[in-house]
């Protein structure tokens, strides 16, 4: 009893749709089951009739002649041994044996019988050899069919690999498209940045101009600062000077002249600088060979220190002269103005005209 499963396998086998191990297993089952083999054969016959359902098309007339010519060429190349059917051979052999028996009747009876036996043995051997060749042919067909199956499977594998390669190529194209989009976006950003840069450039120029103005102002302020500093220095100098003034010694000199009691003089001494200013007024004009000479009395010296000679304006009797001591002056006890000969003297000899302490 053949179940549905084997019927299905038989149908698929009849249409060459079984492959690989499934096909091999079913071939074994067919070889072991005559009923299954009969089913396969009947389904193969039925499937072959499907050839009649193909759209009818007349083969070209030349094809027939071409096939017959090729067949003739094949025959010429490989002369076909005339097939003598074995049963006919048996008949002819038997006839030959009988003829031989008739020829040597009685004389070689046993020998003839032996030859006939030998001939039958050779026929049996030949049939066995023929059967063996058929089996080899069947085996070769099975091997070839399996090789074809293997090649088909390899082709299917190659096809799958090709599909995979195509899929990878498609993925690469997708990534490329995505990259192109990113690139386009980056381009747009670059354009935007350039536009912003273009907008910023005037601002930058303006800022640069502002910077230059600020720098100029800074330089001006620097100059003003320098001037201020100079002024401060000047003020400090003035302040210093004022400090110095605090240390100045001012002494008024009174007239000792009877004829010029109105004569007056003021002496200002800067101890730090060791210099001073003498300002006189209303002193009488002197003869041409005479001169006034200032003296500074410093207790550290036994004699007054020479402060220099001067003359006065004949009209007003005024004069203002700077003076220094011929010797360093530590402290001033008094001033004195004497009248001396022109050019002055080292040691006072004339009368005191003005005196101040």
């Amino acid at each position, binding site marked *: 009893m053949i179940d*549905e499963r084997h*019927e*299905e396998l038989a*149908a*698929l086998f*009849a*249409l*060459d*749709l079984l*492959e690989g191990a499934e096909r091999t297993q079913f071939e074994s089952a067919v070889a072991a089951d005559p009923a299954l083999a009969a089913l396969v*054969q*009947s*389904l*193969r*016959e*039925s*499937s*072959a*009739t*499907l*050839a*009649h*359902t*193909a*759209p*009818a*098309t*007349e*083969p*070209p007339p030349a*094809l*027939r002649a*071409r*096939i*017959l010519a*090729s*067949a*003739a060429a*094949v*025959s010429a190349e490989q002369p*076909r041994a*005339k*097939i003598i*059917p*074995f*049963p*006919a051979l048996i008949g002819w052999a038997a006839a030959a044996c009988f003829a031989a028996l008739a020829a040597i009747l009685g004389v070689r009876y046993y020998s003839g019988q032996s030859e006939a036996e030998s001939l039958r043995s050779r026929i049996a051997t030949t049939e066995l050899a023929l059967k063996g060749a*058929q089996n080899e*042919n069947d085996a070769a067909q099975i091997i070839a069919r399996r090789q*074809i199956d293997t090649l*088909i499977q390899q*082709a*299917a594998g190659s*096809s799958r690999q*090709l*599909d995979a390669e195509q899929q990878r190529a498609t993925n690469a194209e997708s990534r490329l498209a995505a990259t192109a989009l990113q690139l386009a976006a980056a381009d747009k950003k670059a354009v935007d940045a350039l536009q912003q840069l273009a907008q910023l450039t005037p601002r930058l120029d303006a800022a640069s101009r502002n910077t230059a103005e600020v720098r100029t102002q800074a330089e001006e302020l620097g100059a003003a600062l320098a001037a201020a500093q100079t002024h401060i220095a000047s003020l400090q100098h003035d302040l210093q000077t004022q400090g110095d003034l605090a240390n100045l010694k001012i002494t008024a000199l009174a007239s000792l002249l009877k004829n010029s009691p109105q004569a007056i003089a003021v002496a200002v001494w800067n101890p730090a600088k060791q210099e001073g200013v003498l300002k006189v007024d209303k002193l009488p004009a002197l003869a041409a060979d005479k001169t006034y000479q200032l003296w500074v009395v410093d207790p550290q010296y036994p004699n007054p220190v020479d402060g220099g000679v001067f003359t006065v304006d004949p009209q007003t009797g005024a004069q203002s002269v700077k003076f220094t001591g011929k010797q360093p002056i530590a402290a001033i006890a008094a001033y004195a103005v004497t009248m001396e000969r022109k050019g002055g003297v080292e040691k006072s000899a004339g009368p005191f005209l003005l005196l101040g302490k």
Partner: protein
Amino acid sequence: MLTYLPEALAAPVSEAEHAERGAAPSSRFRVPMSDTSSTASADDRTQADAGLVLRMAAGDKTALAELYDRFSRPLYATALRIVTDPTDAQDLVHDAFIALWEKAAVFDATRGTAFAWAVTLIRHRAIDRVRSRRRRSELLTAALPADLGYDEDSGASADTSAARSDQASAVRAAVATLPGDQKRALELAFFSGLTQQEIAQKLSAPLGTVKARIRRGLLKLRDSLAHRL
């Protein structure tokens, strides 16, 4: 295996004798020299085909010519349906008949009819050729021009030989009785060169369903042909 040869070659069965013997088991191995009767039975045709192959095995080229006249149309139509290129189809038919000529001596009538042998031979070669030429993915999308048994153009002109034409008509009539899904599955199985899985994919149906359709369709076709041929 070859015990019927002497009788077949030396003493062809006459039409009357042939008719008289009918479907007796021994008639399977009797080979008429010709079969031009449009009313010839399937067994008669089978025996005649086998007889021609056996004469070919003996080197009889007229037998090859006769076999060509009987088989060439369905074989060419099948090859053309599979490979679609007329030149390729002609080459396949040429090579198939030369193979039949060369292998005639090994033909075993007990293992199948000469027609099934020839169809199997050319179908295998055609599928091998189309598979080697086209990728299998392309096979999936290849258009198939007509359903089995519904191709109006494939009617009477499929085979001008009267007997073969009767057989073709009977086959088409039998196929026409099949449900549409079974016809479609058989059509793809026979002509497309696709695998089971690819046929299922092509039909957008589960593999088990497709296998069942093929089984039912082929069994029904066999039973239907048994009544018609």
